[in-house]
């Protein structure tokens, strides 16, 4: 699959980048730095810094497990997780950078639009881990090497299997508008969750705001994080969730919790969560090490097996029993459009749902 046209500049970039050459065009390759492997020197430098601070919107227990697996692999470097909703992560970093506070080393957001903004603002460091360069498909990495898709999943409907029989469960978003679900639906908030922001964009594009207006008339329970609706289902607080993380549903159901996923016939919103490191990272070497580790088959297999997420790394295996990613009908993601529309989406949403 190597590109046949090799420019002079590519030669200058060096052999590692060439080895990494997958389906890139030369133009794209010229912007990204060469791929970096995890070298003993990098590990040593990271150990000197001793810690890495990771801002993420991954569901907290999973985020901590990823951090712990990093610490186990590289003893001497502690990973601190700063977990909140992606929209809050974005606000937090904006607020901190506005006051010249550089606390974040590596960020992972469930709203891919945030990386477009950070890149525009010049906050991101171009750093391409070897795995990203070698294995990640073009559409899942930034041409300038500033971020790549750490995790992919879908935002889905789900139900509590104790409260709803599978044949009576909703099959589509349209089914959620049935009066029998009145007062029985829980949903998360696009002002907090990047997953829901991305999903709301795709749903209003494909289904129209009218769908949300009718959904609001169902007296939904409004929670914040897209990780919360699955947990409310597990508690038995509501029978159906209108949106939320597929990966939490996997985690709960595989531990025997009474929840089951539904892939809506209209298509499920596709969510991509990139990871990238910051130029002004206080622990630059640890940041590189953590970023590189994030994309290794080891970490990627962990987020699949323990987390229930999907990976774009070809060396990973899907867990049996879950619907294979390729079989799921997804809505098309469009981070650039989300970036343009995010304020409008939040305002419109508040108008419909009042909070």
């Amino acid at each position: 699959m190597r590109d046949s046209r090799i420019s002079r500049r590519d030669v200058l970039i060096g052999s590692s980048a060439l080895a990494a050459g997958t389906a890139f065009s030369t133009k794209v390759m010229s912007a990204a730095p060469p791929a970096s492997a995890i070298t003993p020197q990098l590990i040593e430098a990271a150990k000197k810094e001793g810690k890495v601070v990771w801002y993420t919107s991954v569901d907290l227990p999973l985020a901590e497990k990823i951090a712990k697996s990093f610490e186990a692999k590289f003893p001497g470097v502690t990973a601190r997780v700063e977990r909140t909703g992606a929209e809050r992560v974005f606000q937090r970093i904006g607020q901190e950078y506005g006051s010249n506070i550089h606390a974040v080393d590596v960020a992972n957001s469930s709203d891919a639009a945030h990386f477009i903004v950070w890149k525009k603002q010049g906050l991101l460091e171009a750093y391409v881990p070897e795995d990203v360069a070698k294995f990640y498909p073009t559409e899942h990495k930034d041409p300038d090497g500033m971020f790549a898709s750490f995790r992919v999943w879908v935002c889905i409907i789900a139900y509590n299997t104790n409260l709803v029989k599978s044949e009576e469960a909703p099959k589509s978003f349209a089914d959620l508008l049935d009066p029998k679900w009145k007062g029985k639906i829980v949903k998360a908030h696009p002002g907090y969750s990047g997953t829901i922001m991305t999903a709301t964009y795709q749903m209003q594009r494909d289904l129209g705001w009218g769908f949300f207006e009718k959904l609001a008339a169902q007296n939904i329970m409004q929670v914040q994080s897209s990780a919360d609706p699955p947990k409310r289902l597990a508690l038995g607080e509501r029978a159906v969730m209108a949106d939320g993380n597929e990966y939490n549903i996997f985690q709960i159901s595989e531990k025997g919790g009474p929840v089951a996923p539904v892939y809506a016939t209209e298509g499920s919103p596709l969510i991509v969560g990139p990871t990238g490191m910051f130029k002004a990272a206080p622990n630059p070497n640890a940041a590189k090490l953590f970023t590189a580790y994030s994309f290794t088959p080891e970490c990627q297999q962990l987020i699949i097996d323990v987390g229930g997420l999907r990976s774009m790394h070809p060396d990973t295996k899907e867990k049996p029993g879950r619907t294979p990613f390729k079989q799921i009908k997804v809505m098309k993601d469009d981070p650039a459009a989300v970036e343009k529309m995010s304020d409008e989406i939040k305002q419109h949403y508040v108008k419909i749902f009042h909070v």
Partner: protein
Amino acid sequence: MAAHSGCGGIALPRPEGNYGEMTIALPARTERRGFGIDVSKPVLYGFAVILCLLIVLPLSWLLLYSVTDAKGAFTLNNFYRLFTESSFYDPLVTTFILATSSAFICCAVAAPMGWLVARTDLPFSAIIRALVTASFVTPPFLGAIAWELLAAPNSGLLNKIARDWFGMAPDQHLFNIYTLPGIIFVISCYTFPYVFVLVANSLDRTPGELEDASSILGGGRWYTARRVTIPLVLPALLAGALVAFLQAMTLFGSPAILALPAGFHTMTTKIWSLFQFPPKPELAAAASLPLLVLTVILLRAEHMILGRRGYSVVGGKYGAPRLIPLHRWRWPAFALCLFVLLNPVFLPYAALFNAAFSPVASTFLTVHNFTLHNVNFVLFELSAASLALKNTVILGTATATIGTAIALVIAYVTARQAVTGWRALGFLATAPIAVPGIVLGVGLFLSYTRPPFVLYGTLWILLIAFVTIALPSAYQQLQAAFRTIHPELEDASRILGATRLRSLWQITAPLLRTGVIATWCFIFVGVMRELSAAIILFTSETKVVSVLIYDLNESGDLGAISVIGLGMLLITFAVVIAVNRIPGFGNVRFRT
């Protein structure tokens, strides 16, 4: 909280102005000849400057923002929107209903309880007081989360029990906490201690002689209560109602946890939502002004109702209050108190305990499903926990120490009218009560993120916020303590040649000891409870436990919250007990 001494002594209603004149009329110049330079004035003016910096600076920024548009030009459009858009005035109405109902419920429950504990032979009254303290040290947001576990319509433990007992259908429920009455109930649970403490302490301090005098002169028990006891307690009850109203009005955590899922806003959550991305601080500033105005009106109203009445009840010595025998009503009264305390203490902590150790928060804990999974997660996996805990303890200790010191000086100045402009000082110290924590947070954010004071991202900005928030109640507590100590004791010392500071140190300080310790603990507990300003001002390096819990709630990690919440209670009690045991302070009981 009152200083106890022998028996005898008098208590007289006394116009406030009187003793002030006496203090001022003292020959101040003679002091310099006696014991060197009296440094009290510079110290006092220094504190005035600190207060101005603490309060005037953030409030000025807020006022400025409320009349500017996003570009910085002058406008009144923010206020126009506030009163014409239903998304603004609906929360305003909701908040008013919420605060009024809470204040009413708190008084109706706490006043009789305070009387039972302080003035009757209620059995185990010390235990009742301790339990009220327990409900006071429970952060309201933690209580709200616990009540979610108890009374969520479908998964709530109480509703599950109700379905079992009464054979209700699976989708029927007895309680729904996600409603306005539900929120009023939860807020009242954690606000009534304020009223209880004010009433009980006031009754503790009121000597029995006045009532004795009334009955000797032929007044029946009811007549005595109406003409003597109730008028003496009225200032405390009114102050309690006011505090309850303001607490309910400015609380952020409980409505954020309970109102948002139900799909409506209160003023505080609305203001908070205006700071979400993209932030609209000018609208939020405008939205906070009605709360400020309302508070000022209420404070004025309280002042007018109480008029010029003030009571000095600790002169030299006084008698312990006489206990009224309840006879056969003793145990029913005790049961009633326990029933009331079921709601803020027993049930919520049982729910938290259940959630901490059961696999799913809505499952009843049994011997078979007991798990340490959540404890394990909090202790060994939650990487933000240790830092948050460290920050909270540092901030709690520092805020309590600094806040008590500042409040003590201001309370002295206003109680003794020691410097010109003491009224302004008193007003400044009370003013933060009118500013919801979240609004103060933004005011501070605006003040301290730009040169010359760049404090955002440090613990300092949180310290300033917490001290400012703690100041009104600390000031009022200490001022009340000062008021009960008649200035004649200080006057005697000064007539004998001591400087003001020396009389303070040797006469007033020992009498105030219990009040100071109680205030210190009060502030420390307040820091543990504080969420609304912290949620604006924290950064990843300066996170506190309350913010951590709020974060966990937003992602639905109820088991972890329960473990942290129980741990927080243990730490709070440990600190409060430790402070009460500090040598030199004496062994003093902590009453909130």
